[in-house]
């Protein structure tokens, strides 16, 4: 056995298990930037906006002001559908601070139209999916066509949360 000159907790320390409730105090005022500002305003209008690279045709959702492949400005705003295909979905039983949740939160990624199943990169969003835990567990939600369920117009604030979730059409 190695001679331990570093010091792990003792067994009895591991049994004493105080719960500390705290939230990190770091606060930031982030900049949405050129592309995402327009995107967020679009969400307020109930539209999902993307940028298209006119050189290679790639559509960026969420939008980018430049094409990462061609390294030129994306020069066109396009509206993509608020409909797409569920690529993956999971059911979370823990919160972001790792507290136990009674009801699982279901999230996943959605490949928005226009795009095809053969694309490696595509306009895509990460969001909540309104479906049951069973649908996730037996994978029936995969490949389903889903549509955004928007908040009522007056409640929209220009945030990704203006979409309540994506639900099966």
């Amino acid at each position, binding site marked *: *056995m*190695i001679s*331990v*000159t*570093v*010091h*792990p*907790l003792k067994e009895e320390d*591991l049994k004493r298990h105080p*719960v*500390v*409730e*705290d*939230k*990190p105090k*770091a606060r*930031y005022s*982030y900049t*949405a930037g050129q592309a*995402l500002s327009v*995107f*967020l305003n679009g969400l307020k209008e109930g539209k999902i906006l993307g940028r298209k690279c006119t050189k290679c045709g790639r559509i*960026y*959702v*969420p939008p980018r002001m430049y094409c*990462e492949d061609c390294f030129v400005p994306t020069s066109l705003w396009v509206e993509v559908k608020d409909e797409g295909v569920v*690529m*993956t*979905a*999971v*059911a*979370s*039983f*823990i*919160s*972001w*601070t*790792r507290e136990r949740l009674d009801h*699982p939160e279901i*999230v*996943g*990624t*959605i*490949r928005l139209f226009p795009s095809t199943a053969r*694309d*490696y*990169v*595509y*306009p*895509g*969003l*990460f969001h*909540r999916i309104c479906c049951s835990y069973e649908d*996730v*567990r037996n*994978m029936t939600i*995969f490949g389903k066509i889903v549509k955004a369920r928007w908040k009522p117009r007056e409640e929209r604030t220009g*945030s*990704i*949360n203006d979409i309540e979730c994506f639900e099966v059409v």
Partner: protein
Amino acid sequence: MRTNLRFRPVAVIGAGMTPFRRRMLDTPQELAWEASRRALDEAGLELRDVDCVVIGSAPDAFDGVHMKGEYLAHGAGGVRKPVSRVYVGGATGVMTAISAWYHVASGLCQKVLAVAEEKMSPGRPHPQSVFRYIWDPITEKPLNPNLIWIFAMEMHRYMNVNRVSKEDIALVSVKNKRNAKKNQYSQLGGDITVDDVLKSEVLVWPVQLLDVSPVSDGAAAMVLVSGDIARRYTDTPIWVEGVGWTLDNTSWPGRELAYPRYLENAARMAYKMAGIERPQKEIDVVEPYDPFDYKELHHLEGLLLAKKGEAPTLMREGFFDVDGEIPSSPSGGLLGVGNPIAAAGLMKTISIYWQLKGTAGGMQVKKSVHTGVAQAWGDLMQASTVIVMRN
């Protein structure tokens, strides 16, 4: 054909690490010192012999100290020496060895000490919450994600596309925790069964508690020297013959998650340099990054050691067992040894070094080994680092 001829040859001559534990009562600097001293002892060097120091450490937020490179410098032997810190998320550990390699390969330094340290335990209420700041602040963070979500999404996509069962994935956890029993540094070695994994707490379906590596504190260090002088210190230098690393974009929701193309690119870069044309035939032992059990399968495919979707079948057949064709994670990996992020990646590199040198003790694989590969991975499904070593 080897393409590494224009670089100076680089050899590993010593390595050391601390045990990995849930919480250490030592500071990050003390951990770094412990690992560095052990590496120098194995190499037969003193600190005055070292020309340059490379430090690897993942987000500062874990240890809770900013400028972690500078903070760790004196524990890592970096005072009054050229020091650099590298950071590519979870891929940092192997990147530390790669960076040390190019310090020597370029001719800039003759003897380099590479040190990786991570103390995950200080974060409150749970280190998990520190990951909040890796997400896009505008489009992702408002959904209150936690880190396991993204892995669960990738795992479920991998399972769906390749028709992989939870049972097959659990076999990785069983194998790695079994291998870790032989590793004196490990945190979670033991005999578990597939059933134990499937009955453990569901965190984010399909990820369960025993699918995940633990929170750990620990450090690891390695000494790399120029090939011209390696034999002054040892009769059995281990040669770094290929390195590769690539990054993908942060737009993981707009990308196919079932296959890691960035890893394939990194692997091809490293294999080309080392002259490896048929990876499955030429590689004898591998340490793929396994913070989650499915990740080992995912990475074995990205490393071209299994065809897409075939890694689970090979795993089931024992191809990657410690006495199999290509032993995978003979150290016990992150699932068994622990996951102090940067130190875990360097631990994987050190495991391959010890295997090739024949000094892995209880972990030593049955077959004779000549070529070994270590790999790490990190960020938002983005970064991969690969290193090929030979004896």
